[in-house]
């Protein structure tokens, strides 16, 4: 296939060539970046929380009427007892917050009580001896809390745990050269001994700004005796729906002065996960839909212009056919022509894609696009161009040689 006659012919269709190349370039720039954003969101959504999620239920309970700390302790103990006795419930504990809840608090943790010199930020999870088995956390070193280590913690009490359990990532940050087990760390003004290390436990927040310490969590042996409590309930996975429908009424039957919101007071962990990543999911879907429509629009544009060119050149095609060009020659001519235009488009588009990515990095704290995305986009658009032009080119190749003799 000779390129120079094609290039010579293209000079007579400058506007069309520029339009198709531009469209290819813009499509490439947008689709590459959209795919990259989708990928980033999917990676975020796939991050394991460390929790055995199926069969886990969350109940948010608020005591009405401001009971005193001592009262809350007995109310909570009664609730835990009631919940544990429910059919289908394997285990339960009460806490201030849980992974993906988007609430709770974080503290600095380090080697001295001075808050200005902490090693890492850590999410604070109040726990008891049932936490590990309820959440299904994997203990890799050390031991669980004992029942006698769990203390009540009122609203105004100082947090000063004697023992703590940390995640493997936090342990590594605190003691990079060797095991953190049995060593001390300061999460408060008093030293705490690390008695156990769990494999993984995500922090409550999924926000990008906290991604740097997303696996740094600490379990503290406290029951938080405040108005709002979350009960985490481990059920047999097949009975989770059944427990979820009964749990609210069961708790209200023991004590009415409480608030468990009918709308979202009882949630399965699957719902918690969906709520935590709802905006990421929405964004990924939107990007996907727009990319598909964009690619379809570009393909339609190529078909439209190529059909026009074929129609315009029927006579020339007829002449070429009469002079001995085969159908393959004509087909090849249009495919090559499209390939040349698309190549110009993707070169420009590749540059645009990188430029767009740089701009997005500045505006939206995005990461640098992996070159694979641009290359995959280039390959996809070249293929798209060839597919789109095939039907018009096929029609062109079937123009009979006799067309050369017709005047219209």
């Amino acid at each position: 296939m000779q390129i120079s006659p094609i290039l010579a012919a293209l000079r007579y269709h400058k506007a069309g060539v520029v339009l198709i190349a531009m469209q290819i370039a813009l499509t490439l720039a947008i689709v590459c970046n959209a795919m990259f954003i989708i990928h980033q969101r999917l990676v975020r959504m796939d991050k394991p929380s460390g929790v055995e999620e199926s069969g886990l239920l969350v109940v948010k309970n608020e005591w009405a009427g401001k009971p005193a700390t001592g009262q809350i302790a007995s109310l909570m103990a009664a609730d835990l007892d009631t919940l544990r006795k429910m059919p289908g419930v394997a285990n339960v504990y009460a806490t201030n917050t849980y992974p993906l809840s988007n609430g709770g608090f974080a503290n600095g943790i380090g080697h001295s009580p001075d808050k200005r010199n902490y090693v890492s930020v850590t999410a604070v999870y109040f726990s008891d001896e049932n936490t590990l088995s309820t959440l299904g956390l994997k203990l890799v070193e050390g031991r669980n809390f004992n029942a006698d280590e769990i203390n009540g913690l009122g609203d105004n009490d100082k947090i000063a745990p004697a023992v703590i359990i940390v995640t493997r990532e936090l342990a590594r940050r605190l003691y990079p050269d060797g095991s953190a087990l049995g060593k001390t760390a300061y999460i408060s003004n008093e030293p705490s001994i690390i008695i156990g290390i769990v494999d993984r436990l995500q922090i409550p927040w999924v926000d990008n700004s906290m991604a740097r310490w997303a696996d740094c969590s600490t379990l503290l042996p406290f029951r938080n005796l405040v108005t709002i409590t979350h009960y985490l309930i481990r059920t047999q996975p097949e009975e989770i729906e059944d427990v979820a429908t009964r749990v609210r009424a069961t708790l209200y039957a023991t004590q009415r002065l409480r608030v468990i919101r009918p709308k979202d007071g009882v949630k399965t962990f699957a719902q918690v996960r969906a709520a935590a990543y709802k905006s990421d999911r929405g964004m990924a879907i939107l990007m996907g839909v727009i990319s598909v429509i964009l690619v379809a629009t570009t393909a339609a544009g190529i078909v439209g212009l190529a059909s026009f060119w074929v129609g315009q050149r029927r006579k020339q095609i007829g002449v070429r056919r009469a002079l001995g060009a085969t159908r393959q020659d004509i087909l090849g001519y249009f495919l090559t022509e499209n390939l040349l235009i698309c190549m110009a488009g993707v070169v420009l588009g590749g540059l645009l894609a990188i430029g767009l990515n740089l701009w997005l990095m500045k505006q939206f704290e995005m990461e640098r696009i992996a070159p694979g995305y641009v290359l995959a986009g280039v390959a996809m658009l070249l293929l798209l161009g060839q597919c789109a032009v095939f039907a018009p080119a096929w029609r062109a190749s079937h123009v009979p040689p006799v067309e050369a003799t017709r005047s219209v």
Partner: protein
Amino acid sequence: MLSYYFSLALHSLKRNRVLTALMVLAIALGIGASMTTLTVLHVLSGDPLPGRSGSLYYPQIDPRDMNDYGPNVEPPDQLAWTDGMYLLKAKRASRQALMTEGMVPLQPTESNVDPFQTSALYTTADFFPMFGVPFQFGQGWNANEDEGKARVAVISASLNDKLFGGGNSVGKELRLQETSFRIVGVLGDWHPNPHFYQLYMGSYASDEDVYVPLSTSRDLKMEHDGSTDCWGNTGGDQDNLERVNCTWLQFWVQLDKPADVEAYKSFLTHYSQDQHAMGRFERPPNVRLRNVMQWLDYQHVVPSDARLQTWLSVGFLVVCLVNTVGLMLSKFMRRSAELGVRRALGASQRALFGQLLMESGVIGLAGGTGGLLLAMLGLWLVRQQPAGYASLAHMDVSMLLATFTLAVLASLLAGVLPAWRACRITPALQLKAN
């Protein structure tokens, strides 16, 4: 003449239905996508108090210690109790209100309704007149009731509907946290979006149901939610928020003239200097005075995902337009022979240009209508999302007009180059070729 051009355009469009449909669809998709996201952005970045927001200011001062101090560091977003109370009592602005938010348990008087938590705003008397809050019944409380820690409350229209069936409940009792409050006012339609004066409980569609005096809330130790930012080692004890080194209050002032704004700013600087000299503020004076829109901008209230989506769909519209230019070019150029005949019969270049542009205008109108339907569908989809702002995504008249204007302008723009090329052909050449 226009109606003749119009019928010519329709005639020509009918001749090649697939191509016409393709162009209309491309415009409709581009317009639909960009109008959906632009409407969301328009709703999210709107002015919460049109006409008033320009004279409402949010003073910030920096009472912290030297830890993490650096040049150009922004003062904290909130005020500590000491500073808030001083600025409130100084009354240097024409109106001022100090506020914070929390959840309070509400016990309905009917025993068949379970108690529930409701969001409350603890504020001071000027809140209502300063923000122009509309009342259905009664009114706000006054400064004396602030002083006297009065057990009075203003409730929202929706809470009034829920508890009192929408009737006049002024003077009735409201039990909050086991304490009896007297209702003094019921709000009318009050849903400022963004929820500019208090951003910690959600920036959109997060109206509070109960308003009580700040002094009363402290007296009863009502729960304070939202952010409490502390420095030093005093801790953030909920019951002693008046004495700790924490910022947890929002303060708004009304300043009507530019001169007042300057005066207030220097007042803040002098106060900071005095406090610095006394040793309470370790940092040199560092003050800001932003109005509502500047404050919303500074707080990045509009979600970055919404902005990203808008840029994405504008890019999409551009591709759709380039596509339409290409399709129109092929459509117009294909008619060279016809145009050549008409030129030879005496049609001027201007007339042909006008006719071709009319054709792209018709495509724009059709595309705009399609785009409007798609945007309606898009907004409906947005409203199904669980995000806090989702329920606000409605199209208003200005966005509706903008949709059509954008569609017609875009398609005219797309038609200019093809029409210009098509009407520049030499008639003789075309006639000879045929």
